[in-house]
């Protein structure tokens, strides 16, 4: 696919990568620091890392930078939080996955399929008048995917939330990891 590079997330969005202990209650601790201040968590993805004792959370929040700095410091105070970095979209790689059920009768099916193909997606399920498809892309590309399918009629959608890691330095190992 040959499209221009994806724009970053909206300026108010901040992406935090939070390494935490993989144990009960940790997610609630993290989430409640945002909730207490009335900040909305826009998206959230959690899974264990290569070391099963730890999980990585990718949190996208809608906050101005100054209050975010305070929240990050408060997050750092949580005993179960190991490390936090804010990921600048320009210095990180980001992906998201979507499952989407869209209306598509026999006539529309071809049009939907060509969009799925354009986004390097797959068909997971099919019925006479609906398709369930998946795509895995940069989050802003998934926004486009969703927009393009909307006219057909989206029946159901589940996105995973953004996951992100810092970009590698071409020159060396781990040099961009904070």
């Amino acid at each position, binding site marked *: 696919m040959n499209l221009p590079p994806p724009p970053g997330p909206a300026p108010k969005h901040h992406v935090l990568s939070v390494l*935490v*202990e993989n144990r*009960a*209650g940790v997610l*609630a*601790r993290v989430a*409640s620091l945002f909730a*207490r201040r009335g900040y909305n968590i826009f998206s959230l993805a959690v899974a264990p890392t290569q070391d099963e*004792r730890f999980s990585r959370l990718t949190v996208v929040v809608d906050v101005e930078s100054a209050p975010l*700095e*305070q929240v990050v*410091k*408060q997050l*750092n*105070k*949580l*005993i*179960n*939080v*190991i*490390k936090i970095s804010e990921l600048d979209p320009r210095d990180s790689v980001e992906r998201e996955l979507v499952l989407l059920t869209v209306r598509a009768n026999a006539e529309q099916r071809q049009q939907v399929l060509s969009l799925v193909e354009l986004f390097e997606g797959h068909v997971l399920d099919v019925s006479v008048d609906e398709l369930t498809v998946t795509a895995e892309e940069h989050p802003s590309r998934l926004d486009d995917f969703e927009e393009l399918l909307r006219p057909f009629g989206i029946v159901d959608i589940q996105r995973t939330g953004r996951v992100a890691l810092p970009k590698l330095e071409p020159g060396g190992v781990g040099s961009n990891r904070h």
Partner: protein
Amino acid sequence: MVTNGGSALIKALELEGVEVMFGLPGGAILPVYDPIIDSPIRHILVRHEQGAGHMAEGFAHATGRPGVAMVTSGPAATNIVTPLCDAYMDSVPMVVITGQVPTPAIGTDAFQECDTVGITRSVTKHNELVTRAEDIPLVIRQAFHIATTGRPGPVLVDIPKDIVDPANPRSALDWYWPTDAEVASSLPGYKPTTKGHAKKIRDAAELILSARRPIIYAGGGILKARAAEALRELAELTDISVVTTLMARGAFPDDHPLCLGMPGMHGNYTAVTAMQEADLLIALGSRFDDRVTGKVDAFAPEAKVIHVDIDPAELGKVRRPDVPIVGDCRLVIEELVTALRDLSGGDIAAAQPDRSTWRSTISGWQERYPLVYEQSAGDDLLKPQFVLEQLWERAPEDCIVASGVGQHQMWTSQYWRFNHPYTWVNSGGLGTMGFSVPAAIGAKVGRPDRMVWAVDGDGCFQMTAQELVTAATERIPVKVAILNNAYLGMVRQWQEMFYDERYSEVYLSPDLPDYVKWSEAMGCVALRVESPEEVGPAIDKANEIDDRPVVLEFRTDSNEKVFPMVPAGRSNSDIVVDPSQPQPGGAQ
């Protein structure tokens, strides 16, 4: 050695050096109360779980060691939420153990079940629900480690009944005691920074050596870091005056010529104004609380700020420091003194600019605006300030004083002369009415060698007075001075000044309850004091009693207000002094 969770828990407390704990049993925690009978730990049975929490806090304030409280599940856990929040706000090291319903019953709305870790998450430094008996020794060690290191605070450990009940096979464990290294490696996310950054310390020293109007703004962190001596050395070497916040009273001696006393909403004129006019604030373990800064945008407008705190989240939270230093106050001050010596070639005084004008400005303020009140003789009502002066004069130098929250608290902080660290036990951040009686009891348990006074309001007293039954039963001879002004005085003061004297729901009555009869019924010696001549003799009499609690009820003037005062939300430059003094510019 095979043991059970309940015995392991008590043994773990013993090994952590716990000598006394405060609590009250109930269904879910029953199995842990059984081994207490055979333990050397002294358990003090409270009359309300809030009392247990504040006693643990008072113990910690007075001794520097963590206070320990143990209560059952559900309503007992919710009763101790206020002390947890209080300890969290004031960075008090405390470990609270709560019972919980058996693991299989959790989440079923079982009898006396509540989500204790959920409820207390935001008012503890850390909390933990233990789900396996074999985790108990490690979790207890972690709790004490977390509560007492870094920025101290309360830690809660929630223990389901099945893992401590010897009748349940889930309570069996092989005893082990984790090493320090095991505790540290079990907490990969917890590494408090204690040593200050060398470059930043040098920057701070340079700022100090060039400041013309510097002030040391000492906070409760000085006491937590046991840095009172280091602070004194720094102040004396640099000849810089010190303000001590409500949480830091006693961290620097009030009688020291460099001490300016308490700043803030009810601070004295000189402390407030010296901060306001300073060109350098050296904030040591203080947190720019809104009660200190007044309107933040107008606070100390010309001051550069050096901010030292062990909690990185405090740096820049309210005021962006020019030199932020994360570290333990004692270590950083010591490093700072070394840096000052190095930079000045040994003679710190000679390396600093001439500050004689600043010094004479400060002493001018002190002369113009001392704290004032007028006690008339005869049958007039007592002035609370007079009572406090008398209490202080008649108490030994190292007497510990606790207070409730309200006008009486501010007068205590203003009129008591604190010359020793750890003699002031107070609820600053949360401002918890009812704190003083149980906190004084905890302090007396921790320091039986010291005289302990609680200065309480009539409103506060009615919130936790029942703990005097605990004190009488356990022979803890605390002394309580009730400043009975028949009002929720502090609220009345705001209604008088800011709500056109429309008094809404603040009247309490001087006679109901009858404080003397009530105190006597709780096993105390009690006296009512109504005239100025009676004050001294009554205090002397109370000071002589050492085998039971004493309560003195002082009938005080409800019209008396706390001054100076910076009205809430206003700039510290708008400080209002006592009406008998000329109002400084800016105030009405």
